[in-house]
């Protein structure tokens, strides 16, 4: 009796399916890896009390082109989490401004009670560094009289 199919009818026991049950696990692993390795902000927020202004506008500039200078109530200055003295500002901001192809916007994040003398000195340092675009960071002020109008 001839063997049907020349003896090839034996079924293979190896599965022909690519295992896909762990695909979601792999995707999540990659996702978590990228979430952990992504760095968003260069500096942490300092504790200041924001000044308020009604004319507060959103700054139309890429996040990487904005440099925050924090001014604490006691007049101490912070750039990228590091304290600086007033005299160092020009030397610190100048190269950063040049590296950004003159697109850098300085956001002065000053405490509302800091004496204006400090802010004025800071402005003079920035002018010496060649910076032109400056933002006084404020919180949006909502006033009742304005809403009633």
């Amino acid at each position, binding site marked *: 009796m001839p063997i049907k199919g020349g003896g090839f009818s034996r079924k293979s026991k190896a599965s022909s399916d690519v295992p896909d049950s762990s*695909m*979601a696990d792999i*995707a*999540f692993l990659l*996702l978590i890896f990228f979430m952990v390795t992504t760095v*968003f902000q260069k500096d942490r927020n300092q504790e200041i009390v924001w*000044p*308020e*202004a*009604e*004319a*507060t*506008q*959103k*700054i139309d*500039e890429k*996040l990487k082109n*904005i440099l925050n200078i924090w*001014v604490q109530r006691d007049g101490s200055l912070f750039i990228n989490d590091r304290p600086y003295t007033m005299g160092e500002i020009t030397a610190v901001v100048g190269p950063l401004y040049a590296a950004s192809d003159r697109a850098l*916007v300085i*956001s*002065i994040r*000053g*405490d*509302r*009670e*800091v*004496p*204006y*003398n*400090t*802010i*004025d000195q800071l*402005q003079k340092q*920035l*002018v*010496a560094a*060649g*910076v*032109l*675009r*400056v*933002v*006084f*960071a*404020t*919180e*949006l*002020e909502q006033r009742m009289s304005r809403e009633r109008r």
Partner: protein
Amino acid sequence: MAVLDKKKSKVNDKVPSSSMADIAFLLLIFFLVTTTFPKDKGLAIVLPEEGGEVEISPRNILHIIIQPNGLVEVKRGESQAVQTVTPEAIEGLWRQDVSENENLIAAVKTHPDAPYRFMVDVLDALHTAGAERISLQLFEG
């Protein structure tokens, strides 16, 4: 009856889990799309270039002097008359003055001991009134 008890139920008793990953990704993409990061906000000004001083006719200057107590003294041009107002009143004042003289420049002079927020209040009022020619100085004298 024993016969009925032995009959196997054909309804699957497992919760289908193959689409769970799809649902998770759908949620993930939804939140990715709807998340907005807080944008930087504030009052933008343009600083003068170093050494770029310009002579301005005294007639076109509105002197705004901010005192440490938050009151604002306003002097017009060469006139010595002083008007004391609140920072909020600067908005109306600027609108009125600029309608009379469209070349007007606001010279905001802040006392060194005045808190930063009073300068922001005045700058806010000027921005609200649409002023663009603003000079920020330190009050000396």
